[in-house]
């Protein structure tokens, strides 16, 4: 009887010990959780991390380390869910239940960095080593905040200016003119003023309907900052002080351009903002608009979903033209970035860093670039055949060299909202461009104080 009781007492202990013993016998499993915003065609944002884990596991085996890394991903399509999940991320990390790796926008760096939710990646990854040594140098400042580099670029893109070639030809452009246009834009010969004039011509010829000559982005977005950045003095951040800048002259040029487009040339609809994206894509991909601006990833949409077969024969793309004297043509890039959250501790942190290093390899990163029509991050990538064989990525990567990004600042949200308000007030005709500038300057000085340099 005593024996039986002894066994009964020992049973829980045995049961408890069993899994532990099993774990000892096998390699230690480590699950790395990745969160990423991804539509179906952007799935390599997280799937490539799983691929990287395969390589890493082999490396660990060679090093004789008893770790088996698995990747569990949580991805969300669509910005609505993604925005919610970004907040979920903040809370989850504070609660100690967040993912180890998160793919964020570069603008998330100051917010999460300041809240202490992410590690400055430069402390854990040798950015002087392969493959990061080969990353386009223009991307690093975009990954930096407060003197440190916090993430590595996941992808890049730019937001070009587009033109419908048949319409351009109809208003007198020759094939050679069209081919030379991107260069003319880049050199500053072709300016936003020319955009308005050409749009007007296209419209006057009846090629497109009224208000379709220049067809901007359908909704609010960082893209609109391009029309500020192409103006003389259109800087957004002071590199030495880290403060935001609002240049009154550039702001006026920006507002004036849209005011002219809507009211003087009438090439843009007064109620354009807020329209449906589905409709917008459909129209620009079918020659219903003359000139417009969009994103490099639109290529995938135009050619796959909207059925634009001869993209290069019908669509011209270039930088956003300069705003005039003193301005420069440029384009916005909004890279996403791999960030390591404070959830990763000890060995997890090391493993997460190594995964990010492997996933940034040209070949792996190219999977995403091609599948989603985004741009690569390294020079070497342009020599990976899958990438270089793709005419779109190959040519569009060129734009990246002249690209700028939105500033990484905790105060950007408020600043952005105010400037956007001025634009919409101008667009609707409620305020003249000058009045809009005055209002925005006044409100910004009042609510943001010395966080912004107004000049």
């Amino acid at each position, binding site marked *: 009887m005593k024996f039986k009781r002894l066994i009964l007492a020992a049973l829980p202990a045995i049961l408890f010990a069993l899994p532990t013993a099993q774990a000892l016998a096998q390699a230690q499993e480590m699950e790395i*959780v990745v*969160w990423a915003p*991804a*539509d*179906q*065609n952007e*799935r390599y944002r997280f799937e490539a991390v799983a691929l990287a884990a395969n390589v890493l596991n082999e490396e660990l085996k060679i090093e004789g380390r008893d770790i088996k890394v698995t990747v569990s991903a*949580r*991805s*969300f*399509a*669509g*910005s*609505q*869910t993604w925005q*919610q*999940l970004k*907040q*979920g*991320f903040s*809370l*989850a990390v504070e*609660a100690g*239940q*967040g*993912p180890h790796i998160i793919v964020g926008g570069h603008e998330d760096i100051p917010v999460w960095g300041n809240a202490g939710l992410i590690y400055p990646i430069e402390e854990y990854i040798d950015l002087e080593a392969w493959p990061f040594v080969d990353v386009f140098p223009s991307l690093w400042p975009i990954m930096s905040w407060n003197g440190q580099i916090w993430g590595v670029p996941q992808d890049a893109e730019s937001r070009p200016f587009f033109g419908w070639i048949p319409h351009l030809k109809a208003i007198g452009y020759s094939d050679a003119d069209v081919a030379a246009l991107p260069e003319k834009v880049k050199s500053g010969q072709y300016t936003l003023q020319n955009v308005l004039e050409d749009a007007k011509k296209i419209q006057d010829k009846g090629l497109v309907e009224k208000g379709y000559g220049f067809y901007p982005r359908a909704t609010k977005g960082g893209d609109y900052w391009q029309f500020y950045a192409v103006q003389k003095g259109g800087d957004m951040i002071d590199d030495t002080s880290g403060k935001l800048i609002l240049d009154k002259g550039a702001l006026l040029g920006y507002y004036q351009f849209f005011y002219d487009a809507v009211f003087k040339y009438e090439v843009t609809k007064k109620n354009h903002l807020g329209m449906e*994206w*589905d409709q917008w894509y459909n129209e620009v991909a079918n020659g219903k608009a003359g000139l417009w601006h969009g994103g490099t990833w639109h290529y*995938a*949409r135009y050619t*796959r*979903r*909207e059925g634009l077969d001869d993209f290069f024969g019908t669509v011209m793309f270039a930088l956003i033209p300069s705003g005039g004297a003193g301005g420069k043509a440029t384009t916005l890039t909004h890279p996403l970035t791999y960030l390591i959250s404070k959830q990763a501790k000890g060995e997890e942190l090391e493993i997460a860093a190594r995964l990010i290093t492997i996933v940034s390899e040209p070949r792996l990163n190219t999977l995403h670039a091609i599948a989603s029509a985004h741009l690569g991050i390294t020079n070497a990538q342009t020599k990976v055949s899958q990438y270089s064989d793709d005419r779109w990525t190959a040519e569009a990567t060129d734009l990246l060299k002249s690209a700028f990004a939105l500033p990484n600042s905790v105060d950007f949200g408020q600043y952005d909202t105010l400037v956007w308000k001025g634009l919409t007030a101008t667009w609707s005709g409620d305020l003249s461009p000058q009045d809009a500038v005055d209002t925005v300057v006044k409100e910004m000085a009042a609510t943001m104080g010395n966080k912004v340099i107004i000049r």
Partner: protein
Amino acid sequence: MGDRKTNWPLTVFLLIVSAPILIMYLWLFIDSISEINVESIWPKEFTLRNWRFLVQDIPGHGSVWTATRNTTIFAASVVTIVVALSSTAGYALSRLKFPYRAQFLGFVLLLHSFPSVTLIISLFLMLRMVGLYDTLIGVILVKAALELPFGIWIMKGFYDTVPWEIEMAGLQDGASRFQVWHKLVLPQIMPGIAALAIFSFMAGWSEFVLPLILAPSSEARLLSVYLAGLMIDDYLSDFGLFKAVGLFYVVPVMIFYLFTQDKLMNIYGGGTKG
């Protein structure tokens, strides 16, 4: 007023003002079973292709059945909690004597006027405190708690309509107060329970934000997220598919509604009795 004869001008008038709803839901059905015609709103030909999501997963969006199961569990749990707690608290507020009863009731009404979505951060802190953050149970409790003021108010209204004498009779017949509630009063307010059930089912069935933020690492993907994912996916241009999924999403509630239609008409009947 007895049965009336058809008053044609009136009927036509109502048909016209109801037209948007009729058209929208009719086309929801039509488009879900036909090839979408880009040129016109009239469908081209019959197809069941849009319903393919029932038998195969849409790439990148997981299985609709898993989402349906999760959503059903979520909604059913919310219904259970809301109905159970509202039917007891509503009874107490309507029928039992206890201190601060009026204050309780006034408070319930005030809570009704709070935009619950702005509570997220506080809810996060509370869930962490009770150790239910990042669990589905936590989200269910939160969702149910947010629905409770409405539920209690409605149930109180229904209890108010039950004659006191039925309860008195029950007591005289020897039943305890609990037996009176359970055996005599509860059966009288079944319509109210049904109505509350369908409305809290609806609330749970279409919940979107709470699970994403309060249980972010949960694998339990809900139908609302499934549908939103499909609709926002830039590279899926399949409007017919959205509509089919949309219909799939509405149908369970509609069926529930058809079975309880007469009772549902009473949902606010209780709440209006002053």
